[in-house]
């Protein structure tokens, strides 16, 4: 076992025993990873901080339910942070159910333009999306979920998920086209 894995296992055992030092060490070890996820679902850093703090409280409260045979600790923590991010978006918006779409038209976006853009620049554009559309786009494009999984996560239909993705693509094409044309 690698030293890092042993270290993580010690943090995990200490957190299971409700030891603050171990919980703090585990939080600090996964802070960058969790904060990066949270930033994708938030409008600003304060929102992201809210998401991370709520997520870690849930992590420590339910750490006994983590089963290393079913997946890695990273995947388990990511799922909790993503769910917390979605809860955060749900708290300030409402997912409309009366918009459905069977097919999403493909946008005309120059890939070379995206390659030239920085992460923060792209994020600034994504943040301009309506919250529900923002959530669907991040889940689909960044996290890699399909429409069925997104529909389950957000308690919406697959058609609604497709509609939000279509809206996101149109908006991004427009924004990126405006910036670089």
């Amino acid at each position, binding site marked *: 076992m690698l030293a890092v894995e042993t270290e993580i296992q010690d943090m995990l055992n200490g957190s299971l025993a409700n030891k603050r030092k171990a919980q*703090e060490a585990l939080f600090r070890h996964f802070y960058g990873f969790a904060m990066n996820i949270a930033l994708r679902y938030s409008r600003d850093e304060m929102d992201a901080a809210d998401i991370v703090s709520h997520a870690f409280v849930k992590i420590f409260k339910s750490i006994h339910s983590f089963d290393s045979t079913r997946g890695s600790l990273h995947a388990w923590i990511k799922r909790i942070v993503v769910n917390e991010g979605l809860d955060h978006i749900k708290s300030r918006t409402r997912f409309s159910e009366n918009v459905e779409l069977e097919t999403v038209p493909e946008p005309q976006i120059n890939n070379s333009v995206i390659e030239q853009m920085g992460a923060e620049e792209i994020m600034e554009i994504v943040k301009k999306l309506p919250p529900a559309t923002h959530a669907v786009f991040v889940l689909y494009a960044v996290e890699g979920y399909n429409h069925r999984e997104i529909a389950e996560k957000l308690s919406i239909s697959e058609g609604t998920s497709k509609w939000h993705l279509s809206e996101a693509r149109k908006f991004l094409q427009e924004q990126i086209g405006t910036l670089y044309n």
Partner: protein
Amino acid sequence: MDERLRYEQLIGGKLQSLPVPDMQDAIWARIKTQLDLDMPTDDGDDGNTPPSPTAPRILGWGLSILIFALVTTYFLIKNKPSAKNNSVQPTTIEQTVSPNTENNSPPLQKQNANNKTTVPVNTGANNSFNDIGNDSLAQYSPVTNVQLTDDSVRTNFPSPSVTISSPQLPDTNSVIKKKGRGMAGLGDSSYRIVPKKN
């Protein structure tokens, strides 16, 4: 439709490397506060919690009370025997009356009579002014096993054998000598009585 487009993969990759703000301490403080409320722990002080100010205060009060109690007890115990020694008790008389005694008068009378004759009481109140200077332990020497002699009170009766228990001698070591009054070196003999002249 479920296939990610090339530009989406690019965006996904870029967003994985967003710069993270340094807010670890502030966020941990919030998490810890929430955990302390929801999941209190007894794993000891982590350095953030100041010691309770009431604990040493209670300890201080307890110690003060304990010391006060000990000192009080010590003085009570110390003063008890010395108080006994300082106060002059009348001599106790235990009287045993022989069973073959006849024509006994009521025991009360006899006892009163005996007390009258045998008790060398020195209460200090009877001392004359001149005796004050001669106050010494000798005055309190007890009377032991006094055999009553015939006197006017009991001439008509057979003499009962009276046993007087020996009183406790005052501990000369524990008795504090009184400081003599008047000038040092003057005694009774120093005074000359001169008859008044007309």
